[in-house]
């Protein structure tokens, strides 16, 4: 970190005051704020989506239209590296989108299963290239254990694709503008006293 700071300092030292101000205003200052914010919010990950998304199941409806309370959780596990344990009260079985052969191998290697009232997983699951859906019965707790830390379940809930597309779009637009403003802002500006409208 110190090395990078020193490199930037040395780079800026060689510039004239006008160029230095422009580089800082058009690039370094907003990049610093964006970088610190992303690091503070997501760590070193550049993936704004969680590797596992949760959705709580609360009730079931039969063909007569009668409904009854039934608790459970749906997990959509992305094919990215993640180890998680989700505590659930009264969890007894898993229902998944993987086939029997794949399930057998993953259970054998402890990549998926139930243990002491919790569902655990180690993604990506062997033999699966796409996202995997997992349904577990039981009451959802308030925390999920991921990589030796506990996080609120609310941060891992499923969000709609149209919502996340707004964030991705804003991010893409922001990056594009970084490039555009830097290129345009670094173009020489000639002093013109008569140009003040």
């Amino acid at each position, binding site marked *: 970190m110190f090395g990078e700071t020193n490199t930037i300092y040395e780079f800026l030292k060689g510039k004239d005051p006008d160029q230095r101000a422009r580089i800082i205003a058009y690039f370094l200052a907003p990049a610093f704020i*964006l970088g610190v*914010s992303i690091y503070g919010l997501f760590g070193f990950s550049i993936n704004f989506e969680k590797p596992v998304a949760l959705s709580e199941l609360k009730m079931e409806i039969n063909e007569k239209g009668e409904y009854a309370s039934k608790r459970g959780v749906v997990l959509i596990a992305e094919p990215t590296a993640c180890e998680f344990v989700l505590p659930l009260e009264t969890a007894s079985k898993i229902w998944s989108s993987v086939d029997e052969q794949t399930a057998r191998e993953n259970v054998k290697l402890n990549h998926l299963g139930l243990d002491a009232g919790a569902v655990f997983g180690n993604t990506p699951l062997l033999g699966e290239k796409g996202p995997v859906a997992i349904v577990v019965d039981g009451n959802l707790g308030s925390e999920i254990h991921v990589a030796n830390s506990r996080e609120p379940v609310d941060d891992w809930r499923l969000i709609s694709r149209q919502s*996340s597309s707004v*964030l991705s779009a*804003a991010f893409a637009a922001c990056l594009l503008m970084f490039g*555009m*403003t830097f290129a345009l802002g670094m173009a020489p500006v000639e*002093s013109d006293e008569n140009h*003040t409208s």
Partner: protein
Amino acid sequence: MPGLLVAALLVASFVLVHLWLRRRPMPADYPLNVDEGLPLPELAQSSTVFSLTALFGAYLGIALVLGLFALIGLACGTVLGLFLVAYWIDSRYWLKSGGKGTFEGFLSEVLNGNETNVLVYSFVISIVQCAYAASELLILRELAKAALGLKYQQATLLAILVAIIGYFYVLRGGYLAVFRTDVIQLGLVTIMALASGAVLLRHFSVDWIGKLWSQPGFWELPILGASRWLAVYHFLVAMVMGLGFMLASPDTWKRVFQVLKRGKGPRLRALSLVGAGALPYLVLLPFAITISFRPNERVKPGFMASTSLSGNWIFTAAALGLISSFLSSFDSAMLAGAHVQLITYRRQRRVKSERLRFYWIMVAVLFVIWLLFESGIRFGNPWLLGNFLMGAYAAIAGIQVGTRGNLSRLPPYSMFVIIFVSMLFWLMYFGSKLEALKTPTIYSVNTVPMGVVVFLGAAFLSVIAIFLGGLKRVRRN
């Protein structure tokens, strides 16, 4: 689809700014000395007032629980504020300049007088503008969570991304970018308001009579109680609030200046100001009459999201409107804060080219906004900062009224004393209510009458300071 449209809006607006700048570049030496080529200042003004301030901020809260009289009071106060600013510019500067002045000339005239007074005043105005921009960011983040369904981290990142995009607009295009994109943004905000308003009117039954009157527990009169004077009291308090916001906002001064500069006849000018002042409240009306909730409940920003945002097009309209609405007021506040600082520096040391100074000030403004935003996140109530700012706006507006817009009348160092006393009073009051204000409830609008007391107090202190200063001068002579 919504994401694609949001990206298209943000990038296309920026490309348009670039194309406009090729035809009319920013002045090389004085980047903010731009008064030409800024279209439709009235609409830009409406857009800024209607933005998050009206639609998701204090004005909607007032309209919801205090009824029609308070809403009319806000509208009248806003219109009166615009007329007072127009009169102020006209009498203090425009006539003197023979109709050939610039907004920078007017700002220099405003920031005139004792050195310390000017420094304190410009610092307070700039910091209030930065805090206003930060409070808009906090509200945007909350709405992104509630209305767009984003998670905490994602909503925070969205707010920061849009803030950086807004910063790029201002840095690259200054006033030209703000005014021209305001027109596009107003169009999108109007579509969002019409779409959401239509959905709300279709899905909710309206209690027209009930909406005329205030709910109990808000802005109660200490002695007269619930008499007919209560409506007058609500009207007056709301009027002072609307007026104060206009008097204390340099971006409003700029827009009114542009209306004056355009030089249309007095009748058309008056009509423009009335239209610009009243339009945001007309658009707010469908929301105010259809939304109902119990005051004791925690404010849920997504209260109108569940029904109205279910359709893809409505969601898209809401996402575009929300981001546009935010950019409109955020950019205006950011630029106003930077411009006041630029003129203050110019007073101290004039340089041939202020471009370098502009860059540094913009960087400083961006960092101040970011730090305020990061601090604001720690509080559970995203409206807390905006609520606190009400006192600061009231103090600035009070000084404007007390000095009749002429700061040079104040004796040396008195500005510091007036602001210190006003803000200390407001801080003490706010501190006593802080526990209750930590959670977002609609009862936070009950701080508004005390804001009016700050306004009157600052005006009174300014008059006293001018009087004492005059007395001292007479004695010395």
